[in-house]
């Protein structure tokens, strides 16, 4: 009990800080397109968070403020065909904008380490080159109900182990709804997947929150803009090298030169051969023009 109160105090402090700061520059704050959050930073005190929170896998909502509120939602995992079980908690701030839209910011993730049983299951997955699956509820606010839809993602278990277990989440959000979660290794997963056990049975998690970006608009032209750009186009074309400019002349020239050289080389030989043949030819043709001269 004491612990939770302490946490609350901390939270309040943090919150008040956050509110004040957010109020200061709220007007011109842009929608955050892509946030790379909760990388290794959250990792060292993972154990602490686990021991302190270790909550049931439900979401709690603290509504200390109208503007922002803190929410939690849990990550669940499954080994091959098994059922889903809790695997970690996402903590985030729910930000309510002036126009009523809500977005998640400041996402933090605390991952539960594998228990012995889970380790064994995971090793089985590694041996069988099977899928490790995770899921999140599709709406972070809705209360847990049986008919709720989950977004599921999976990866071949052999993609995860490096020194530790490296994982990478991309959570696609639309307001408070999670459209999809893409789960996998942070880098490549080369194709002939080798069986490799991780050196450390702990997770290195990276999380990216993604919102949809706006499509480029069709370009709009008006007369004067076209004129301006045309005017601005007066800059001379970049100077090209001599070779780039005149290669089409140089190559034939080179060929001609080479041809001339080979001919020049052959000339003396031919003359020798020619002279050897000349008598025969002369016999056939009769007197040569030189001889014919009167």
């Amino acid at each position, binding site marked *: 009990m004491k612990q939770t109160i302490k946490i609350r105090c901390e939270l309040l402090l943090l919150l008040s800080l956050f509110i004040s700061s957010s109020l200061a520059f709220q007007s011109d704050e842009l929608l955050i397109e892509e946030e790379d959050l909760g990388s290794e930073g959250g990792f060292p005190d993972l154990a602490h968070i686990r021991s302190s929170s270790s909550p049931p896998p439900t979401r709690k909502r603290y509504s200390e403020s109208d503007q922002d509120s803190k929410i939690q939602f849990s990550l669940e995992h499954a080994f091959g065909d098994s059922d889903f079980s809790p695997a970690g908690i996402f903590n985030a701030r729910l930000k309510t904008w002036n126009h009523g839209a809500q977005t998640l910011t400041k996402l933090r993730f605390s991952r539960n380490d594998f228990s012995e049983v889970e380790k064994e299951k995971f090793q089985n997955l590694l041996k069988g080159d099977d899928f490790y699956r995770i899921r999140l509820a599709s709406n972070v606010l809705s209360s847990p109900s049986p008919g709720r839809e989950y977004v599921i993602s999976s990866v071949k278990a052999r993609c995860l182990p490096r020194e530790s277990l490296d994982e990478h989440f991309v959570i696609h959000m639309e307001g408070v709804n999670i459209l999809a979660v*893409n789960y996998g290794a942070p880098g*490549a997963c080369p194709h002939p997947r080798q069986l490799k056990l991780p050196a450390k049975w702990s997770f290195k998690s990276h999380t990216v929150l993604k919102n949809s970006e706006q499509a480029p608009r*069709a370009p709009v032209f008006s007369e004067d803009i076209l004129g301006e750009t045309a005017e601005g186009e007066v800059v001379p074309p970049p100077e090209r090298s001599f070779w780039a400019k005149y290669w089409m002349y140089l190559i034939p020239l080179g060929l001609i030169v080479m041809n001339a050289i080979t001919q020049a080389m052959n000339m003396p030989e031919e003359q020798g051969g020619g002279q050897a043949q000349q008598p025969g030819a002369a016999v056939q043709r009769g007197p040569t023009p030189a001889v014919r001269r009167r």
Partner: protein
Amino acid sequence: MAMAIRVFLLSLLFLSFTDHSFSLYEDQAGLMDWHQQYIGKVKHAVFHTQKTGKKRVVVSTEENVLASLDLRHGQIFWRRVLGANDAIDGVDIVLGKYVITLSSEGSILRAWSLPDGQMVWESFLQGSKPSKSLLSIPINLTVDKDNVILVFGKGCLHAVSSIDGVVLWKKDFSAESIEVQQIIQPLGNDKIYVVGFVGSSQFDVYQINAKNGELIKHTSAAFPDGFFGEVLSVSSDMLVSLDSTKSILVTINFQNGEISFKKTHISEFVEDHSGIVDILPSKLSGVFAVKINTLLVFIRVTAEGVLEVVDKINNAAAVSDALSFSEGQQAFALVEHVDGKVLLTLKCSHDWNNDLLKESVEVGHQRGLVHKVFINNYIRTDRSYGFRALIVMEDYSLLLLQQGATVWSREEGLASIVDVTVSELPVEKAGVSVAKVEQNLFEWLKGHILKLKGTLMLASSEDIAAIQGMRLKSSEKSKMTRDHNGFRKLLILLTRAGKLYALHTGDGRVVWSLLLPSLRKSGSCEHPTGLSVYQWQVPHHHAMDENPSVLVVGQCGPNSDASAVLSFVDTYTGKELNSLGLVHSVAQIIPLPFTDSTEQRLHLLVDTNKHAHLYPRTSEAIDIFQREFSNIYWYSVEADNGIIRGHVLNRNCIDEVVDEFCFDSRELWSIVFPSESEKIIATVTRKLNEVVHTQAKVVADQDVTYKYISKNLLFVATATPKASGEIGTATPEEASLVVYLINTVTGRILHRMAHYGSQGPVHAVFSENWVVYHYFNLRAHRYEMSVIEIYDQSRADNKDVWKLVFGKHNLTSPISLFSRPEVIVKSQSYYFTHSVKTIAVTSTAKGITSKQLLIGTIGDQVLALDKRYLDPRRSVNPTQAEREEGIIPLTDSLPIIPQSYVTHALKVENLRGIVTVPAKLESTTLAFAYGVDLFLTRMAPSRTYDSLTEDFSYALLLITIVALIAAIFVTWVLSERKELQDKWR
């Protein structure tokens, strides 16, 4: 400013170079293309054979086409295609010169000029309540010397002037709770009877003055047993209906405003009357027909309302309406099937035993049963009455029967194509007879001399006509063998009627057709529908002695959980090789990229329970399949729930029966679109058989980028639910369109992009590494087309030549989709003037030729648009290097160049789809557009750079060569002589 003009001129010059890649000269029309016009399955037919003029029949069809056909030859005089939501409910002819159509559930009445099909007038009839729509044209009813058309629709009765379509009077029945069934106008009477049911057990008659629409009398009577279905009017004051138990016939007499019912039990006529009982809607005057299972019972109604059986006929196919052909004489046609022939009997309504006509006609066994029959009379040369019948068959074809023979037939099934695939023709067997060549030698020479004349501009006008005729009739293109260029193929078309057609690409003739027995109505399969057709077996190794075959997939019933039917058809002979009635349903069909030793392609059929079934069911297939077992992934789209799921095979099905060809699936990933903000409106993937020549794309400055080419990409477009209706129902603020590129193996969203203020309908095409899609921008009030191109960054650092030389590149390493993708996406939007019905892209054999988009426009034409216009790298001022690469300066809208209409002057009415088929010649592709009409052409998106054109004069070349050789000899001899003379000098 001068610079601007220069830039403009330069770009114009550039455009003029690029744009003529597809356009043809006037005399080339019909050389490489063919066009066929159809009308669809006929619903109503009205004959117009009176007096002088052309004999014609006006028909309306299920494709919403109104057409006037030549009764002698079956050609179309004129044809009008109404909109998709404008179904025709009734057709008639008034004043001998107007065709009247009632459409859109009785709310639009139009008059068309009979000779040429011009619309004369159109009137919109207002009404509030959806109801049955009835069109009735009384013969002798006039109001102010104006013939009146009575129309009931949307709960109102209108009397409309036939001259100008003005509503003369209107009587609203929507306040009353009556469900109007019939409008009866007795001859020589100014009264109109509107009869109908209130609830199911009360019968009402309204007597209305035909002159002004005033209600004269309203009577009603209760019938406690209740009615079932509709009423049929037997005579001007007598109606017949069924009671709610469907075992009693009720005759309703409403003479003089008094309603009386008379019940007759069906068992009085037939012993066994369990089963389906129906009153046929044919108007036979005094007689009506009841169908009890397969037995057709004709029952006469006497003036007192007593029913007496006239005849019982088993397995009759169709009955026409009665036709009055002389004073008081009425006849109707009855069609039966007797030993594979159609037996047409014309009965006289009053004198049953006297058949006016009894003819047996052979119509061909591939047409199925007769569905409808319409009759018309004429006066024979011997002054007796003759009859002709227009029949609509099970395969939707239309035939005219007269004097015991088929006068003409139209294959109207081709107006409702469901799916298209292609088959190669047989390989030409060696040994062409010499005699044939010799016989044609003279012709050949003559042709070439003509062509030579044409090229040298010496040809007279007759010669030019002869050349043109020769080119059009060239027998080369309609041969039944494979050609070197791969232009000759068979198009295999599956139609809605369950008939399979093979059309020759050369001239569009039907090579064979097959009414699939497995897609015909039967006891086990009540409502069979054809779904799709796939290439099942394409022999390459045994191309000489094995025939290719196709797989036709259908299902028994309109819902996807109905059991599936498979049928295998030989594409050379058109015979069904085998058919399977399956126990499971079919939700998805996945042709796998594996073939067995007989070159049968493996197909995976996924049912609604997410079980995958492998076909063919052979042990060899299962062996091949097990090898690739872990590499088979698929996805399913649940558009209603807004969920896309990815699946992988798991293990054999666990069922009562062990089935080693059935596999369980496991869900790998899912994407859930929030139902309040996004609704899936379009999903597109790449074509499975598309060939990509190279992954690398050389861009300006000798740089290279790598296309992200994956067969497992899915394009999804979602729109806000509010904005998924028609354009104009949502404001720009509440509409948005989000597009996704999804990897279907891992479920990764590779790209996601929102178009705010835009809405569907979205038409998209996916090819290589790009998607082009078309949608409506509400803010700009215009249609837009956007392009997304996706490039692979993981291979981008392979540009170093030394890396390639020393083998330090990753170009040959296998790609795993489980790696984190490194892609960059480029996109750009452009305005496009047209709204679009469908988009396709050209495909060539090796994928080298540049691509063109084929856009099916709202005007039912096909427009070819170079893909380069939809390049996201277009900029306002491309650099010199970019210009050399072929990048077009940026414009805000895409050009529509009239010459680039592939369909030139023709229209493909109700265009539904465009299919492109690569020819063997790399530069060329065949484009087939289908709707109500069919159109096929040959296109060369980058011109035919790899072959000479067809009208290239080989003779001229030959003659030139011969002349040159002769000249060489002559000059040689001359020079010899000169030299000799010189020597003697």
